[in-house]
């Protein structure tokens, strides 16, 4: 694997003090914060910065990293020598200081990944370490809420073999997600997390469900919202209109007369097929035929002259 130069990531010298590292990290955490950053690769950079900080801000990890990384360059091919971490005492708290160490690189996982969980003395006096819980996101298409989906999740666990060497073991799960999931839903797969050692139980795998943005529908909890484009006469006189749903089916909606743009229609039970189904909300948008069409132009000019006393500004003020 490739050596990662964490000092370079944070932009500090190898001799940097703990304070300098802290300041550098906070500056970058602000620069790449996912909610406010305008940088194009903010998420990836943030992950990189978090990983570097997880190592360099922890005295034990930094000491071990400095020892194993002496003379190494960013990108260089690298294998940690056996017993590279002999003599270093890592505290029980593993992972990335509250960050999702699942997003960290293989380099981190192989060097520091196994320092997780709370080791306990087992019945026979050997150390028992319960397996770690893993967390992963699962991204579905909106249509999958109706048809279910299968997704592959690849997890890495560091394993210590009989000779004490750490290797990265990778496991792929084919997860079948049934129909009826909601965005943000947490699905637990018991026992699919990290393996325990010394006979301790495996951890669990938690999947967080997310939906990809859809061109026509916006998901709001278990409700879905879409625009309903209508012709001016459909809005004014009322109409029955076809609406295509995410699962490919379609239904007919009655638009009452006198609708204006922005008006909402709610179709109960046609939102996400969750255990308590959500609603479909349709927001009316009046679309005008273009005056480039001479027939439309003639009609507009007729309306303009015969309805000359119609004042749209006054009407809008009155109805707001």
């Amino acid at each position, binding site marked *: 694997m490739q050596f990662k130069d964490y000092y370079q990531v944070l932009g500090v010298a190898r001799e940097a003090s703990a304070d300098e590292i802290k300041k550098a990290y906070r500056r970058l955490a602000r620069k790449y914060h996912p909610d406010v950053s305008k940088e194009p690769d903010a998420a990836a950079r943030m992950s990189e910065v978090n990983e570097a900080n997880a190592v360099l801000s922890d005295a034990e990890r930094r000491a071990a990293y400095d020892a194993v990384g002496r003379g190494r360059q960013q990108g260089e091919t690298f294998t940690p020598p056996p017993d590279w971490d002999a003599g270093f005492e890592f505290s029980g708290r593993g992972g990335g*200081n509250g960050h999702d160490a699942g997003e960290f690189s293989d380099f981190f996982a192989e060097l520091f990944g196994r320092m997780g969980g709370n080791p306990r003395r087992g019945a026979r006096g050997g150390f028992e370490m319960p397996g770690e*819980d893993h967390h992963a996101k699962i991204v579905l298409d909106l249509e999958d809420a109706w048809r279910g989906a299968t997704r592959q999740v690849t997890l890495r666990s560091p394993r210590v073999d009989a000779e004490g060497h750490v290797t990265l*073991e990778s*496991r*792929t799960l084919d997860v079948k997600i049934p129909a009826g999931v909601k965005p943000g839903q*947490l699905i637990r797969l018991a026992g699919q997390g990290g393996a325990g050692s010394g006979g301790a139980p495996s951890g669990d795998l*938690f999947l*967080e469900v997310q939906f990809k943005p859809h061109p026509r529908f916006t998901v709001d909890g278990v409700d879905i919202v879409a625009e309903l484009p209508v012709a001016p006469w459909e809005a004014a006189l009322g109409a029955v209109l076809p609406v295509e749903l995410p699962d490919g089916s379609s239904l007919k909606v009655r638009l009452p007369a006198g609708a204006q743009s922005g008006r909402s229609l709610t179709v109960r039970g046609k939102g996400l097929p969750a255990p308590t189904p959500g609603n479909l909300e349709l927001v009316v948008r009046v679309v005008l035929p273009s005056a480039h069409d001479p027939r439309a132009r003639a009609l507009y000019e007729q309306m303009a002259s015969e309805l000359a006393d119609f004042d749209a500004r006054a009407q809008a003020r009155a109805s707001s």
Partner: protein
Amino acid sequence: MTRTETLVQAMLDEALLSLDELCRAAAVEPEWVAQRVDEGLLPPPVAGGAVSAVWRFDAPALRRVRCMVRIERDFEAPAELAALVADLQDEIERLRLRLRRGGLD
């Protein structure tokens, strides 16, 4: 590196985490959580009042805990400030949703 493939069927029930499971997931101690529930910086757990053994936490609670842990650790921020950051992130998400609903994003 070894690879194995396993077929797993997910169940639809929303996973609710016990206090222990929440602490493992977010790398915090139970007292950290209890204090912030007490002070109203974390929402009341789904089940159980004062008896932490029956507390249950849902996905939004886990997200909020992780957010607060990060702010407190990364910036040595007081819990109240971390709670404010979590509130602001909720509001940002709410506003983004409104933009998406209005086709304005």
